[in-house]
């Protein structure tokens, strides 16, 4: 052996062997960075600027946090946050009670030996929940919702409705009723229809003057009524359309989860005298809870991005009543307010990430441990 070490070719070969993993991963890492991280950074950069077309191209003028300030405190506050209504004495009681409950939960977590990162996460989640509560009381109960509150209504009210019906249908299909296999296919069909098609279909169905239900509506004396002229009714119609499309998704996941539950456990419970509700509450539900928590999380993330239905079904109206945050960002982009649009999109990202991580840590992960 040469005292000076291995020949250069051997050294190169050794280096390649040692770093083969990284080398093979590099192209994939570059692609991921190019397609996910770069747009994220670029849109953040854009959110700090004012975009303007000028002769021969465009100009980006740095405006700092102005686009965010406009949405949170300035001229677009009504559009994003909404308009706050009156404060009632009862609200104070509700907020104090909620704050006390959250502090107690944090105290219990600290007593259980949760680490510093866990405490920070829980404090953030508690703060988010308090903000949500304030938003609910000041904006939704007594004020006028902006796109943030409207999106949260779609996420929470729509999500809850979809989960309840999806789970109910899954339980029905596993209860041994005749035609169960046929209904599995029928219930799944709406998920395969494009959202734009669903929006147009619901627009037609909900037209009270010319739609297919118009004669029925007139028969009941509703010819001078239009759901699209009332903010809350219009939001409910959007939720109904959205639910029609997404219930099958929850149905199919929950169906698979319920079918995976050991039937012997249920039989044993029944033998011990448990009724149907007790079997569900103490055998089926604990077994399917991880799947349920996961499907709710996926659905919530998807619901934050709702845009097709309110855009086509109601055009965001009446007023801005059915406008979601994604539609708000799109409307700003369409009017060439690219900085404002990027700011709305970033705020949407922050809201959905905080709520999704909180939900994951507080619901999904414990449910898995439970199993």
């Amino acid at each position, binding site marked *: 052996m040469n005292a000076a070490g291995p020949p250069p070719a051997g050294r190169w070969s050794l280096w390649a062997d040692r770093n083969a993993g990284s080398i093979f991963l590099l192209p994939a890492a570059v692609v991921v960075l190019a397609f996910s991280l770069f747009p994220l950074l670029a849109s953040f950069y854009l959110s700090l600027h*004012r975009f303007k*077309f*000028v*002769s*021969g*191209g*465009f100009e980006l003028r740095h405006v700092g946090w102005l686009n965010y300030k406009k949405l949170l405190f300035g*001229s677009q506050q*009504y*559009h994003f946050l909404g*308009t706050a209504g009156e404060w009632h004495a009862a609200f104070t009681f509700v907020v104090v009670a909620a704050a006390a409950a959250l502090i107690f939960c944090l105290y219990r977590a600290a007593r259980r030996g949760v680490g510093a990162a866990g405490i920070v996460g829980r404090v953030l989640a508690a703060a988010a929940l308090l903000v949500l509560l304030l938003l609910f009381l000041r904006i939704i109960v007594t004020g*006028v919702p902006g796109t943030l509150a409207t999106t949260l209504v779609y996420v929470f009210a729509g999500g809850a409705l979809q989960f309840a019906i999806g789970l109910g249908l899954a339980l029905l299909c596993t209860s041994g009723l005749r035609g169960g296999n046929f209904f599995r296919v029928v219930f799944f069909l709406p998920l395969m229809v494009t959202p734009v098609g669903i929006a147009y279909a619901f627009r037609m169905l909900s037209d*009270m*003057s010319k739609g297919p239900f118009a004669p029925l509506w007139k028969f009941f004396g509703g*010819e*001078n*009524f*239009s759901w*699209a*002229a*009332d*903010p809350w009714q219009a939001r409910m119609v959007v939720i109904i359309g959205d639910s029609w499309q997404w219930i099958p998704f929850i149905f199919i996941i929950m169906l698979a989860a319920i079918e995976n539950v050991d039937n012997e456990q249920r039989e044993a419970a029944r033998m011990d005298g448990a009724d149907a509700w007790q079997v569900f509450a103490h055998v089926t539900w604990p077994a399917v809870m991880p799947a349920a928590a996961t499907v709710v999380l996926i659905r919530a993330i998807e619901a934050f991005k709702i845009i097709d239905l309110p855009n086509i079904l*109601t*055009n*965001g*109206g*009446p*007023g*801005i*009543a059915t406008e979601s945050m994604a539609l708000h960002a799109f409307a700003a982009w*369409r*009017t*060439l307010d690219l900085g404002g649009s990027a700011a709305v999109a970033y705020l949407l990202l922050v809201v959905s990430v905080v709520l999704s991580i909180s939900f994951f840590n507080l619901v999904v992960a414990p449910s898995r441990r439970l199993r």
Partner: protein
Amino acid sequence: MIKPQHALPALALTAMVAMPLSVTPAAAQFNGVEVNIMTFTGPQIAEPLQRRAPEFKRMTGAQINVITVPFSDLYTKLLTDWATGQNSVDAAVFAPQWMADYIEPGYLVDLSAQVAADSALQVDDISPFFREFSQRYKGKTYMLTLDGDFQMAYYRTDVLDQLGKQPPQTWDDYLSIARAAHGKDWNGDGEADYGSCISKKRNAQAYWAVMSIAGGFLQSQGTKQGAFFDAQTMKPLVNNDAFAAALKVYVDTTDYGPPDEINLDVGDTRGLFTQGRCALTVDWGDIGTLAIEEGSKIKDKVGAVPLPGSERVLDRATGKLARCNSRRCPYAEGGVNRAPYAAFGGWSGGISSAAGKRVRDAAYAFFSYMSQPAQSNVDVTIGKTGFNPYRVSQFENLSHWLDGGMSRAAARNYLGAIGDSMNSPNMILDLRIPQNQRYQQNVLDTAVARLLAGEINIRQTMRQIESGWEEITDELGRGEQAQAYRATLGQ
């Protein structure tokens, strides 16, 4: 599809323009040339362009491709296409009030020389308002007018006769008629009909009606006074008792309209009106010609008046309403101040400076062809074109209208209302300052839509519009905007 009664004059007139004139396109002159023209999703406006494109191709060889986009996207699509250098659009038919935003960066061709040399266009026959205001910017011609636009109030003559009412002179009259007519069957189909139908859909063309109502309350000293801003300070005239009164009228009309009126586009309200379901409407000139279309239930039952006005107008010093007198309302008639609104200014054609020379020439030849009396005199009498009269000859010569199926009395009434609007010394000019689209199509439209939805009240609406307009003015430069505004008013 052209109607049979239009076919003969159309053929004869087409043959006339095919005769050699100074810049009349020669056969096969533009063989192999393709022109992409963008306009809004019709059927109005796009229809005559699409219908006349094949005959233009037979005459000249030029292939005209009409690209349509929703109205709310038209301004942005054009700006994006031309500013990014994509230049897929060679020419466009759009609102002349947007032209400043396209001309200043150099996206539109100066057509002055071509227009001057174009005897077939008969540019002197185009009414002075459209020729000097809608076609020109800073003394040069950039657009060719294809349509004349004024908003007016239309009423059902048979309904007013039965109610014993006169055509509305004020907005109070308008509401009074709407109230009396609402809920009664006016077309014999057994269903209760509506007192008033006004398009109020957001992100459409509804926001012009707001200024149509507000005009008579806001402007009383003649066209040069302006109705949108204080011309010296650029303080918006949207947060005062006059604008509040106008918004109240606008909201009150909803009580006498279809239940889903706030979601109806102009096509929807026109359909309702021509089906005999509405006693009143506020619209552009299209109603007059749609009323004589096949299938209309209101042929010879429609009257038109310039926009109603008000007996009280804005005192700009106090922000309060004050009763008209000879000093305060010098143009008032019978104590009523009216301010007809040249809303939109008429769809007009402009040509991209980035297009090749042959393409530009072909686009100009096509717009000229569309605007020449031979074609225009026919198209303005067809309801589905969306084109309304804008040539002097179209007002003076009733034969086009009689050929189109309008009775002599209806034609006189219709053209008289447009003529009175156009010749009014207190006419309101469209807002023509840079980025006017943001002021009206974004801020005003959104705030009024929220008001109609019941999300905010009139005071909140006015504050929202005012703060939104002030923010845009401050961003773009108050001095520059004020200068541009004064220039459009001729101050």
